């Protein structure tokens, strides 16, 4: 227990808080198709951070946040300027800005390496070392954690993260309406008196602060995973933003805990002495969660889509067969589609009792009714296309062949 409190508790909490903060913000980035702005900002905060550390001589939160906020502002402004003044494509503008800023950061970091009191390891910058957040003066027993005074000696980054996580959650809760409208329809937001540009700027600032707060725990590249992956995973599961926020927070925090557990315990299973890099393991867990969700999500998952498409294809084939039988029910010439019907569609229609077992097949009583409903939908669609969409009747007929498998046109929202 003591070992858990000293070595694991704080890193675990730090990862969970980082994941929570980033996952919540990431929803808005993903919705606005600005996921790569998160990428750009997380790379580009590096020079701001290094300057702050050089100037203040420490990793004190206020200096670091100020530096990161300035760097984020510089990034967003220069991307915008290069896009507008230079007429450069957005992706390229981002690539130019963040790689130059990151290079500047690396250069300053190397130059500052010799200075006293500065311990920023260039690799640590990229992938963080949550394992270093050990709590050496942790209480002996877990019960003591219940009293607030026991926490006084916990590492400072934990409190910074706690503050940022609380602040982010509160801000999103308070400004949920504004964030939502600006994310879905910036133009509408502006006409409704919500300054979409301002919301965007605030979001970028929040991302920068979250990136820096999560910095020691996850580093500047893995934070991208925490920003984007939980939101993308949640997006596959729901169409409601509020639900998506909850789901993303759950995914983020769950993956953080699970990933840390795997990192700490998996090597022991293989007889290796040390733990894996926890931040990396969390990222991989997030990715695994995304892949599984992408496959099995109920509506938007790959499997669900394949099943749906296949079911529709079967129904279309069967309805086409019924309609053909209906059209030629008294026709002695027996066109080829009746001579050689699609065997699987025929089997399906027979098993439902819509077609007799005769050769050539005939419609049963219930099959006749079903075919009539298909024909009626066909006529309704054809009328609709001629009347409302102004199609030539001959063209409308071909199109109605496809649309007859859908519900009839009166269910369309645009119909009076």
């Amino acid at each position, binding site marked *: 227990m003591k070992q858990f409190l000293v070595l694991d508790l704080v890193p675990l909490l730090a990862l969970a808080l980082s994941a929570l903060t980033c996952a919540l913000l990431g929803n808005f980035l*993903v919705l606005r*198709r600005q*996921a*790569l702005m*998160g*990428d750009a900002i997380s*790379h580009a905060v590096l020079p701001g951070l290094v300057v702050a550390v050089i100037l203040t001589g420490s990793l004190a939160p206020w200096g670091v946040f100020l530096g990161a906020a300035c760097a984020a502002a510089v990034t967003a402004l220069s991307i915008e300027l290069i896009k507008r*003044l*230079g*007429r*450069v*494509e957005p*992706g*390229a*503008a*981002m*690539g*130019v800005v963040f*790689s*130059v800023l*990151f*290079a*500047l950061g*690396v*250069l300053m970091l*190397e*130059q500052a*390496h*010799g200075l006293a009191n500065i311990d920023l390891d*260039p*690799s640590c910058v*990229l992938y963080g070392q949550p394992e270093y957040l050990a709590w050496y003066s942790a209480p002996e027993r877990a019960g003591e954690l219940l009293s607030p005074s026991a926490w006084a000696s916990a590492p400072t980054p934990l409190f910074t993260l706690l503050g940022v996580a609380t602040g982010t959650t509160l801000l999103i809760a308070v400004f949920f309406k504004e964030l939502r409208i600006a994310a879905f329809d910036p133009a509408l937001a502006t006409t409704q008196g919500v300054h979409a540009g301002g919301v965007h700027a605030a979001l970028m600032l929040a991302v920068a602060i979250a990136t820096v707060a999560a910095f020691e725990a996850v580093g500047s*590249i*893995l*934070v*991208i*995973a925490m920003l*984007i*992956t939980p*939101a*993308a995973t949640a*997006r*596959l599961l729901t169409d409601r933003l509020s639900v998506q926020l909850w789901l993303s927070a759950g995914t983020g925090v769950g993956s953080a805990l699970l990933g840390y557990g795997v990192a700490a315990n998996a090597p022991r299973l293989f007889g*290796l*002495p*040390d733990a*894996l*890099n926890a*931040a*990396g*393991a*969390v*990222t*991989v867990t*997030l*990715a695994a969660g*995304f892949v599984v969700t*992408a496959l099995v999500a109920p509506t938007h*998952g790959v499997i669900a*889509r394949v099943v749906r498409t296949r079911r529709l294809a079967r129904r279309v084939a069967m309805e086409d067969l019924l309609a053909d039988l209906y059209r030629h029910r008294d026709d002695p010439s027996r066109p080829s589609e009746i001579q050689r019907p699609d065997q699987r569609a025929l089997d399906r229609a027979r098993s439902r009792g819509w077609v007799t077992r005769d050769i050539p097949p005939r419609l049963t009583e219930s099959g006749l009714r079903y075919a009539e409903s298909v024909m009626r939908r066909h006529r309704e669609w054809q009328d609709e296309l001629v009347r409302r969409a102004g199609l030539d009747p001959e063209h409308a007929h071909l199109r109605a062949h496809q649309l007859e498998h859908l519900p009839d046109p009166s269910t369309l929202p645009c119909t009076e």
Partner: protein
Amino acid sequence: MTPPAQAIPVHDQALSVSEVVRVLTLQAGHNTTVVTLAAATLGLAAGLVGAFALLRKRTLVADALAHATLPGIAGAFLLAALVPGLGLGPMSLPVLLIGAAVAALLAAWAIQLITRHTRIRQDAAIGIVLSSAFGLGVVLLGIAQRLDVPAGGLHHFIYGQTAAMRASDAMLMAGIAGVALVSTLALKKELALVCFNDAFAKVDGWPVARLDGAMLVLAVTVVVAGLQAVGLILVIALLVIPPAAARFWTDHLGRMLVLGACFGALSGYLGASLSALLPDAPAGSVIVLTAGAIFLFSLILAPSRGVLAAFAQRQTLRLRIAADHLLELIHDNAAPAGPVTLRQFARARAWSPARAGAFARVLSARGLLTRTPAGYEPTPRGRARGERVARNHALWEQYLVTHADVAPSHVDWSVDQVEHVLSDELIARLEAELEREQSGAPAIVPPTPDSTGREAGGA
């Protein structure tokens, strides 16, 4: 990894001029020279390949590929170290680079799968693949560093380290870059077609998907070549910055390719040289910052698309439009065009009198106005131009009312914006059309000024 055959000179003191000259003229020892030349070759290839990636708007996909090389490198190392039966040296550069290339291609495939089969858009897909792959790489790297096999050099691939490069490594890098260079040149026509009009390319029977794949493979080749010198995080800069800088200078693909390649080569050459001269200056960062400086220079100063040039063009256009308005005002004001006072003009344009005055002086200097005690009076040239603008105005008015169904009350408002951009050819066509339409009807369009009155380059 064995130490480099010849250490790169590093001095703590201020640089001497001879030292700088020695490095820049490639006389600072065999190893430095080879590394510098290899970096220049890399820049050359990256500038060329990157130009197509830029035009195809695939730059950030390339960034994801670059980050995804980390698990490839670490994975190849682990495979070689843990399965000795394969007979691969764990730290042998070709093995690591092949691992990197395989991982990068897998990442490209993953991005494509996500965007094609889920509702997640490309930006988020890139972010997911980039960060997840990097995270996997970090985990694998951690495992690799705990093995008994020395893996000290692996993390150099993240930031790149020219100092640890041997001449043979540099040759390999230059060789890979050279392959990318030659293949890009061989595919130039096809890639250009796909970049500029992929729909046409598809209709015309070109294998667009395969050409896109080829472009990705070329990008991966450059990334892999740049891993050692620039590192996997910054190698994207070599692909995007030089072509983006070249784009400011020209609208011609061939010239853009040449310029992009030159900018890339220059960044590689200068960056590698500078990093050999300065202490604690990682080559990757210096190369990227050099490229960044070239980009900034082009952004501001390039003659056709640069910021200053665009500003000058805009000002010229504004001046011309204002001149047209003033001359038209004079023309409309008096039948025998009389003088206009500054105050009248300032009020008509809602300008301050000082601004109107300065403007009137500019036009006087150009010989369009003369100053009289009563105000400004047009010269014959100015009068002709005023007439012409007024006539164009009337032409457009007529055209918009009869052909474009614009409410007559809105006509004045819309013509003000277009009368300055009419071409002579269009005027002639409009004129002919209108005259045919209203043959017999009294012309509301004033007659064309005689050809001597028309000035070249006006309206």
